[in-house]
C-alpha cells in the first residue's frame, strides 16, 4: 500500500488537501463538522478534551485542538474550511490562522495581503476596460 506522488507535492508552503490528507484526518474534520450544531458547540465548549476523545482524535490532534495550534492542525491533516469551525473557539479568524501558519502577527498578515495587491489599479489601467470607480 502506497500513497501516490503528485505534481503538487512540492508546492512551497502549501498543503494540498487530497486523499492522503483527508484519510489521515477524517475524525478531526468530522469533529469540526459537528460544530455546525449549537448543541455540539456547547458540549465541546463545556469539556473540549472529552469531546475530542469522543471523536477518537489522535493524541497529537487532541493537543493541537486544545492548544489552538493551527500550524499543527494543518500538518495533521485538518482541512482549512473545517479548521475555521474550530478557530472560533480560540477567538480566531481565518486571518489570525493565516498569520499563525507563518508565525507573524495578524497585522503583518493583513499588510502582506495589501502588499501583494498593491498597485492593482495600475494593472487595470494598463489592461483597460475595467470599471474603475
Amino acid at each position, binding site marked *: 500500500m502506497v500513497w501516490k506522488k*503528485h*505534481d*503538487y507535492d512540492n*508546492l*512551497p*508552503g*502549501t*498543503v*494540498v*488537501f*487530497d*486523499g492522503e490528507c*483527508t484519510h489521515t484526518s*477524517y475524525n478531526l*474534520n*468530522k469533529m*469540526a*463538522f459537528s*460544530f*455546525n*450544531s*449549537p448543541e455540539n*458547540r456547547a458540549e465541546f465548549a463545556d469539556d473540549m478534551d472529552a469531546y475530542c476523545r469522543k471523536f477518537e482524535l489522535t493524541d497529537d490532534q487532541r493537543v493541537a485542538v486544545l492548544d489552538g495550534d493551527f500550524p499543527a492542525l*494543518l500538518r495533521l491533516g485538518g*482541512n*482549512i*474550511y*473545517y*479548521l*475555521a*469551525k474550530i*478557530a*472560533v473557539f480560540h477567538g480566531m479568524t*481565518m*486571518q489570525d*490562522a*493565516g498569520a499563525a*501558519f*507563518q508565525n507573524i502577527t495578524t497585522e503583518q*498578515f493583513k499588510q*502582506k*495581503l*495589501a502588499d*501583494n*495587491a498593491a*498597485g*492593482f489599479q495600475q*494593472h*487595470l489601467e494598463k*489592461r483597460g*476596460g*475595467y*470599471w474603475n*470607480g
Partner: protein
Amino acid sequence: MGKVIGGLTTSHIPAVGNAMANKLEQDPYWKRFFDGYKPVISWLEKEKPDVVIVVYNDHGLNFFLDTVPTFAIGCADSYANDDEGWGIPTTASFKGDAQLSWHLSESLIEQGFDMTMCQEMKVDHGCVVPMNLMFRHLPEWPCKIIPLAVNTVQHPMPSAKRCYDLGKALRVAIESYPEDTKVAIFGTGGMSHQLQGERAGIIDVEFDLECMHNIVNDPDKMTALTNTNIMERGGTEGIEVIMWMVMRGAIAPNVNLLHKHYHAPISNTGAGVLLMTDATD
C-alpha cells in the same frame, strides 16, 4: 423554451457576507468593492431572470467529507441556508424549480455528466453571499435558484476543461426545456487566494487579470491549465476559478462583455466581477 440570458462571476467570501450584515458598504475598505456590483444589480433588475443557477462549492454545511460529489445539483422546491458553525448570519430560504432541475439532470447525464441529484440541499455562504450581493435590497428573493455544487474542497477535483464542458452541456440542457424560462448563471468563488500554510496570503493580481481576460476572450487558454498550474499561481483556494468556467461554457463562444471589475485585497482574496451575454453580432 429555456434561454440563457447571461452569466456573471462573483466572489462568495464570508467576510463579504458579514460586511453586508453589518451594512459596511460605504466603509472605505469596502466601498470600491461593493460599487463594482452596481451595474450587475441594474442588469438583473432589467432582465429579471426566472431562475438563477448558482455554481458554487459547499464548505462543510451540506456535504461532509464522508461523501464528496464532484458535481451536485439541487432538485428540490426549496433550499435553506443554515448555521455553518462560525458565526456568519443565516438568510431566508430560496425557492427552487424541481421540474427544471430534473430536466437538467436528465439532459446532463444523457450528455455524459453524471450529476449527484439532491432532494435536500442546504446552501452555504458559497451560494448565499452571491445572492445577497445581487438581491439584498429587495424584500424577498426575486427569482428561483438551482444550486450547482462543484467539489473544490478535496482533491481530486474536476479540471477547468471539465467545468467548461459542463457549462456547455448545461446550455444544451436549458435550451431543451419546454417552458419559457429565463436563466442566468452565476459562477462564484475565487480569485487568487490561499488560506493555509506558510504561503497563506498570496494574491497574484496579474494571474487574476489574465484569467479574467482569457475567460472572456479565450477560454481555451483557461482550459489548458491543470489544477496544479492554477494552484501554483492562484493558491490552493484560488482553484475556485474553475467554477467560473461552468458559467463561461453556458454562454456563446463570442460574448458581449457588459461589465468588468476587480478589487484586491478583499479579506484574503482578489475579487473579480464579470457580466456577459451572448454576442449579438
